């Protein structure tokens, strides 16, 4: 195994473990903190995939904004963080079976795909991925429509969220 693979296995195990803790932790704030660790693990996986930009964006958006938003949401409630109810719904065994079947199907389908064993081509050090992304985002043969639609989508999200969350006195 190459060192990269060892790091990947460690990080993946950390991410999965943290994800498991998110759903099993009794305390909501602990769940949020475990979620942050899981999201951070995903960021490291992005780095291992040579996607540095996605990695920092993952940390900025998911940990810096969304996780904070979640913690704010928890703080908005009347103390529900330590409420001790059942952690699992009664149907958890069925959910486990379905999840395993889904995972198995996906793994089986992917193993049949010829790209699964292909090595990623090495990116030359002169190739700036962020610059290419920027060019693709606004070029007419690239994603310019998606780029502008994203802006409108963000606007809609802003207005929608505030209309719902904002109480007029």
């Amino acid at each position, binding site marked *: 195994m190459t060192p990269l693979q060892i790091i990947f296995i460690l990080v993946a195990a950390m991410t999965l473990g943290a994800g498991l803790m998110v759903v099993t932790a009794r305390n909501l704030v602990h769940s949020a903190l475990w979620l942050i660790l899981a999201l951070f693990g995903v960021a490291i996986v992005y*780095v291992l995939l040579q996607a540095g930009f996605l990695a920092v964006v993952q940390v900025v*958006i998911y940990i*810096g904004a969304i996780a904070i*938003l979640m913690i704010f949401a928890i703080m908005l409630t*009347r103390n529900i*963080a330590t409420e001790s109810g059942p952690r699992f719904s009664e149907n958890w065994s069925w959910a486990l079976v379905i999840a395993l079947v889904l995972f198995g199907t996906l793994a089986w389908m992917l193993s049949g795909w010829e790209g699964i064993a292909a090595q990623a081509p090495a990116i030359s050090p002169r190739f700036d991925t962020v610059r290419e992304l*920027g060019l693709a985002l606004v070029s007419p043969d690239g994603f310019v429509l998606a780029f502008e639609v994203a802006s409108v989508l*963000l606007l809609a999200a802003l207005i929608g969220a*505030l209309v719902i969350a904002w109480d007029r006195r």
Partner: protein
Amino acid sequence: MQHQDWLFIGVFLVLAPVFPAAALLIPRLLAPRKPNRIKLQTYECGVETIGDSWVQFRVQYYNFALIFLIFDIETVFLYPWAVAMDQLPLFAVVEGILFILILVAGLMWAWRKGVLQWS
């Protein structure tokens, strides 16, 4: 890409908590340890603590966090655009500005609606 640079970041990530953690371990050896019930109480300037420490926060915190989230995502989109600035034709620059203006409209809307007012 930049294996060497990310390796440095990775090693830093592992080592950075070690320094403060080591600083926390020294008092374990040196500092006295005489806890008692009064000393361990929650500090509220000498007044007896009443009730739970859970404070219910106002929804305003959440609103501002929402606006923050939207603008954070927006700016992240703009960074690749800014990096590629010298290779972009004029209309691509205008597209980026259009992107900003659409969100400025959102900010203006929130402003007019009074969402930005902390009361």
